[in-house]
């Protein structure tokens, strides 16, 4: 790569920015230390304690044990088959398979459990700080701050968050595709018995589904891209996908957007509303609600004018002059009002998202507020 695109950065500016970054980090660390010194009160009543840590997650131990039993069941074809069914072990029974699960509890429950264990050890289930999850909350909080730092400027902390999220999300989607698509829809179709035995015991299958060969074949052709010699075969799956979806979307869009939206226009431009009076059959004799009628009629007319003028704006083969030009101009006004409204609406959503991130920092991490009673 040439020096194309390397940013022109003044080294002095860079040094000053790095110094500033160090100062900001130091301030954040000092504030965190202060937060720890102040501490917070967790639990209630007798069990209340002052906790100097924060951003902690507490978990409770829960043991699971299972026993199996053999039974004979009738298969679909009428033959009797031996099946092994598992169920949770009853108290006192020795489980064949067992493991421990850890369920999240609140700080209050933790404090109460500490108190209870002090009174009667061994009777209560273990409640403790979960270090992996606590580390998780801290990691999440630091990554949140790292992303926010991008608003200041591109910096090493942001780059770290960026590289983490690219790696983890690419992997995440591949795993989701594997377990949610490849296993049930490909392995489950072509190798049902093996899939059921090793990967998806709940798979219900009537046997091999040969249709599964179609995507497998397309996939193999696609992977030809990896070799230069047969790479050209890779365009066939692309042609297949683009072709099928062109056909599907053609029908869908005409049906659900073109025709259905035209159908919504079967609304009268003159609306007469009657005042709502008490009593069920009063509507017949009720006087006309002039404000409501005029408002509703005006709305209907404005909607019609809007749809027609915006459509006029989209004509390509006619110059926007004369009557069409004026109509198209009204269309542009409608579009601008639509965009303005859309913008206004969206602001609300974006602020809510930011609020949720701040709530995470203040609530889960710093324990400054506690709207949901977690700590």
């Amino acid at each position: 790569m040439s020096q194309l695109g390397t940013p022109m950065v003044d080294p002095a500016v860079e040094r000053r920015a790095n110094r500033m970054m160090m100062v900001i980090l130091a301030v954040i660390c000092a504030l965190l230390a202060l937060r720890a010194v102040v501490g917070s009160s967790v639990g209630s009543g007798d069990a209340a304690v002052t906790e100097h840590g924060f951003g902690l997650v507490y978990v409770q131990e829960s043991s699971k044990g299972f026993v199996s039993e053999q039974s004979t069941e009738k298969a679909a074809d009428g033959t009797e088959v031996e099946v092994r069914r598992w169920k949770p072990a009853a108290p006192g029974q020795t489980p064949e398979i067992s493991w421990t699960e850890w369920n999240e509890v609140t700080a209050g429950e933790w404090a109460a459990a500490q108190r209870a264990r002090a009174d009667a050890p061994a009777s209560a289930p273990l409640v403790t700080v979960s270090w992996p999850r606590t580390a998780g909350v801290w990691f999440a909080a630091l990554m949140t701050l790292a992303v926010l730092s991008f608003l200041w400027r591109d910096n090493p902390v942001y780059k770290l968050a960026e590289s983490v999220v690219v790696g983890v999300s690419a992997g995440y989607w591949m795993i989701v595709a594997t377990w949610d698509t490849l296993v049930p829809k490909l392995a489950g179709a072509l190798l049902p018995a093996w899939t059921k035995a090793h990967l998806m015991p709940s798979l219900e299958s009537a046997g091999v589904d040969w249709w599964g060969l179609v995507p497998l074949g397309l996939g193999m052709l696609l992977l030809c891209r990896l070799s230069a010699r047969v790479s050209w075969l890779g365009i066939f799956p692309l042609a297949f996908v683009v072709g099928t979806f062109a056909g599907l979307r053609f029908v869908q869009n005409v049906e659900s957007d073109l025709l259905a939206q035209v159908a919504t226009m079967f609304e009268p431009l003159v609306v007469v509303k009657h005042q709502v009076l008490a009593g069920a059959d009063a509507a017949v004799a009720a006087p006309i609600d002039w404000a409501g009628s005029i408002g509703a009629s005006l709305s209907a007319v404005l909607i019609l004018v809007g749809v027609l003028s915006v459509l006029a704006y989209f004509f390509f083969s006619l110059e926007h002059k004369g009557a069409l030009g004026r109509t198209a101009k009204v269309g542009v006004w409608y579009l601008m009002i639509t965009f303005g409204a859309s913008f206004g609406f969206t602001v609300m959503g974006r602020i809510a998202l930011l609020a949720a991130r701040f709530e995470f920092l203040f609530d889960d991490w710093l324990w400054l507020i506690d709207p949901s009673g977690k700590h």
Partner: protein
Amino acid sequence: MSDRPNESFLARLDRIDRRWIFLMMAIAVAAPIIWVGVTGRTFPETATPAVQGAFDAIERLPEGSKVLVSFDFDPASAGELQPMATGFIHHCQLRKHRIYAMTLWAPGSPLIGATLADVIGNDPSYRYGENFVDLGYQAGNEGVMKQVGVDFPKAFPNDSKGTPLARIPMMQGITRLSDFDILISVSAGYPGGKEWVQYGVSPTLTQGHRLPFVAGSTGVQTPQMIPYYPVQMSGILGAIKGAAEYESLVNAKATAPGETVPAKYQEAQRRMAPQLFGHSLMVGLILVGNVIFFAGRRKGAAE
């Protein structure tokens, strides 16, 4: 400091480093969160027709109705949509409806379990498989919606834990989408409410049986949904404001006057305070921007 000493205050304001605007926005959102977190106060809400429509659609169904809730969102949008999902489940619980939860967004499946546990986790009258079920995620976007319309068990052969539908009592008699009494979608984009209208609800319209449909949608998606209300949709919760209005409707039904509402059912109402300050800042910025613009134009005309 300034390299253009003769520049007027407004002209300098026009060239303001956008990071000052960022800082103002951060304060406008963060400060009210702390304030509300400490005082616990929220603003009163009155329901708009689309929200009231959504509330009424769920309210009017008889007890034990079958409600399909699609959690079509991911944690990135949870700030806006989680209060809606919580509100819908809470309302269904109050009305004792049967809840069928599903998602078409892969990252949405953990949210189903968390929401159900949060709202009906401690309710003994809600038994898994009888009153509520978590059908989990199904890949295929609108393909699943179409499949659900003709053959529900084919689209969802088992629940999120892998239990076949035949072994779940409340799934008896569910063969297609129109067997449900109402469809609720909480959606952050594609696939979501719009696709549910196109591929789920519209086909039931041409079949002559109208499936009531209620959607919760992000602020950005809401304008796109408006053309479908009230014909294809019975109600829409638009953005956090819609969620706050819906919350207050459900809370008014759930709690007697004077009783305190659990904090988890006021999430959206709490978030209206940062909204207020954030919006005020935006309005102020637009005003200042235009003052600068007109002052600049007058100066340009005078010179």
